[in-house]
């Protein structure tokens, strides 16, 4: 059965069942990843799958069901299950479908270039990465993870109100994780890159960066507890800001699950802080012309010069607040498609030079457990280097940094101009941002 045949079948069954309107969201993905260790293919994954999300409306309520099978039985199951699910809904909030109105950006997101690479070529890239990392220095004792991957997605949303939109996107990534040691206490060197085109994938550079960083970390020590200035490198800042970005979701704000509730049009950060949602960056594989409601996406300033300008809405939360959707629907909530921070004036090297004493944070861990987007509090593990008089002096490990994200926004003293694409913990959102200096953060150590 083709998707169009399946769609016609589902729509007709749904009408008979008594749904007023309904929608199918087809999500077709291809994920590829190869990992090499000791010159051997340790892991090779090639996964193609489709998912079809059904949403049916009756009165103000909606029922949902998902399937991975396109056949007659499955069409019946989707409708039956969704109907049963609709019956147990108690919330008075009105549900919607979008009719396809509005301007859909024509984005050039897909070329199929990654699909044309053969498995053997990708294995070679991963092997090359390992070879460069291993050969970099005799203190590189192991390179367990040499990974090259890419994925492609095609989504189509079609409903009985006349909406029928689709897009494709793709992207690639590579990362290298290695162990550097002069004895007992191994340190990890790590580097990940995300790219749009295969030719941008410089695996040798990834290997060199990881190796260099691993070696620099040897001999790291903890620090006495106290308040410190932090220079948070952009990859670490991407993880923290990415995790806390759910605070901007109107759904969370309406449910009082966000520390930003009641702060619209108020100052929440320093003048230097501007945060943008840019769903249209052609260099990002999380960009998209419409959200999961099928509503057109748009570029917007969420925080402008420290002032909170908007929350992120889907159709349902927008109706509740009496505004229009911002095109940020993601599943049942809302979120950034790409979170962008406007750059400042100083390069990364100049940032290091311009602070008298600080900890340069190059990585953080435990974000999912130690950052609470309800209160904004964070307490996470961190590592990096001590910077004194504008020079990196020694590596630092086994410290935690703690505080509240809104205090961090208010204590940013410098914003760099070293903007680049970084991964966040969400597979649906990349970050494009610079490194920042934050004053007076609680650090715990020995």
């Amino acid at each position: 059965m083709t998707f169009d045949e399946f769609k016609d079948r589902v729509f007709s069954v749904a009408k008979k069942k008594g749904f007023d309107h309904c929608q199918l969201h087809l999500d077709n993905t291809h994920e590829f990843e190869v990992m090499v260790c000791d010159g051997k293919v340790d892991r090779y994954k090639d996964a193609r799958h489709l998912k079809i999300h059904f949403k049916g409306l009756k009165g103000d309520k909606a029922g949902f069901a998902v399937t991975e099978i396109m056949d007659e039985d499955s069409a019946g199951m989707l409708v039956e299950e969704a109907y049963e699910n609709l019956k147990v809904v108690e919330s008075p909030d009105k549900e919607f479908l979008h009719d396809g109105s509005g301007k859909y950006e024509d984005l050039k997101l897909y070329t199929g270039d990654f699909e044309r690479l053969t498995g053997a070529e990708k294995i070679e890239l991963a092997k090359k990465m390992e070879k460069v990392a291993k050969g970099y220095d005799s203190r590189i004792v192991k390179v367990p993870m040499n990974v090259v991957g890419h994925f492609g997605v095609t989504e189509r949303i079609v409903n009985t109100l006349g909406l029928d939109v689709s897009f494709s996107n793709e992207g690639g990534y590579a990362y290298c994780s290695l162990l550097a040691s002069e004895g007992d206490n191994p340190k990890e060197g790590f580097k990940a890159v995300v790219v749009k085109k295969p030719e941008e994938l410089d695996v040798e550079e990834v290997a060199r960066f990881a190796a260099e960083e691993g070696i620099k970390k040897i001999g790291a020590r903890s620090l006495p507890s106290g308040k410190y200035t932090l220079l948070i490198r952009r990859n670490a800042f991407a993880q923290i800001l990415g995790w806390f970005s759910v605070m901007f979701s109107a759904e969370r704000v309406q449910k009082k699950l966000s520390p930003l509730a009641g702060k619209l049009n108020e100052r929440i950060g320093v003048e230097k802080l501007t945060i943008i949602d840019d769903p249209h960056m052609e260099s990002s594989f999380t960009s998209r012309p419409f959200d999961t409601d099928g509503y057109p996406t748009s570029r917007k300033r969420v925080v402008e010069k420290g002032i909170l300008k908007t929350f992120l809405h889907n159709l349902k939360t927008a109706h509740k607040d009496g505004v229009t959707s911002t095109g940020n629907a993601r599943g049942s909530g809302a979120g950034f498609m790409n979170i962008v921070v406007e750059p400042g004036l100083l390069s990364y090297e100049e940032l290091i030079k311009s602070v008298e004493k600080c900890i340069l944070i190059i990585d953080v861990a435990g974000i999912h457990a130690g950052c609470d987007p309800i209160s904004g509090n964070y307490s996470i593990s961190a590592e990096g280097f001590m910077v004194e008089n504008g020079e990196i002096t020694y590596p630092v490990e086994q410290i935690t940094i703690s505080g509240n994200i809104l205090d961090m926004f208010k204590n940013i003293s410098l914003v760099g101009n070293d903007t680049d694409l970084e991964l966040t913990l969400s597979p649906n959102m990349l970050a494009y941002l610079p490194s920042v200096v934050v004053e007076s953060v609680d650090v715990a150590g020995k």
Partner: protein
Amino acid sequence: MLDRNLVMDVLDAVLHEGGDFAEIFVERKKSTSIAMTNGKVEEATSKLEFGVGIRGFREDEQIYASTNDVSRDALISLARDVGKALKEKKDVTAKELEKVTPENRHLIRYRPDEMGKDEKVRIMHLAHEGASSFPTIVQVVVRYWDYVQNVLIANTEGTYVEDERVRTRLMVSAVASKDGVSERGYDGPGAGMGLEFFELVDPKEVGKKAGRMAHKMVSAEFAPAGTMPVIIANGFGGVIFHEACGHALEATSVAKGASVFAGKLGQKIASEVVSAVDDATIPNAWGSANVDDEGTPTQRTVLIENGILKGYLVDKFNSRKMGVPSTGSGRRESYRYPPTSRMSNTFILPGEYHPEEIIAATDYGLYAKTMGGGSVNPGTGEFNFAVIEGYLIEKGRITKPVRGAILIGKGWEVIQKIDMVGNDLARGQGMCGSISGSIPADVGQPTIRVSELIVGGRNR
């Protein structure tokens, strides 16, 4: 689930092109999830997943491909691709498939796929009621999740096995607010059971636990920062062992020599009061199964005995690399992931102390009553995890609640610093994320004391 002849043809198609071992994993999973906010069901979703994963080995290399196009042509073509990617054809033929029906240790009384949604919603209302019974609670989110997963696993060594895994879970998150401060309380028990689980676990009590936690924490001061003794309560506290040690005992990192515990079998790696096991055979436990996701019968594996490293958790692929048998630890989230060695129900065994004795023996420190999640780097042993309900211990007594603490350390150091182990073993449920996806896993321990740990908090 899939025609037996087709299964055989798929396996043959792999070996015909290359490799020396082939496996097929067929999965059908039906799940229900319901979300309730402030006592009202907001969204209910049903999901049907169905797909196939095909894997081949050639010596110590492996190739995996998956699809949910399960037509004969698509599967045979995918199998050939896997074989071709393995290159070299070996002189190996598939053995005749011999169907094995494992003894089902996990009997289900009320299958969730046969129970009405109203019944599930009723349970959620009880949980909501429990959570909202504390004065500072402003928001309660209750989630219910169940699934029935059927798998068929066959390989060229003649394995042909089917298994069914049923799981049910209730998760309550309560937010308390007072004087502009918000804190969260959480409880999320689950089991390899149907709705009979709620005869064992009272949903209202689950709610109360979450509500009480948030209510207490919202009035708490921030935890002090620094290095101090930490007592970790039983149950979900076992996440410390899971993160600090368990992941580094998985063959996934051991086989590559990328774990701090590689090559240390038979050596003393922990304090002698520490013994720990991984046991996937516990009837109806959250992390149990009759066979693992490679069709190997599950077992109880002793990891550490009186401080001595006794064993690793091994899957089929790494068993080749390490030259030791699989421990039935090959697991995966779904057919979309190749399996690898993972924990099931992993816990520290009970010791000799009553928990009260451990607290009384501690002059100053942190009592971590409820742990949140955490993570670890198996290569360096560096771990972190959050304390979502903590108390200060002063002069052998629990004095006041403290919030916002995180514990960090290195696994190989911390297990040497466990100096007291209680007699109150309990387990708690979590979802463990790693390279083969997110899977249900039990963590567990009795109350334990770590003589010193770095506590991340605020400076006084």
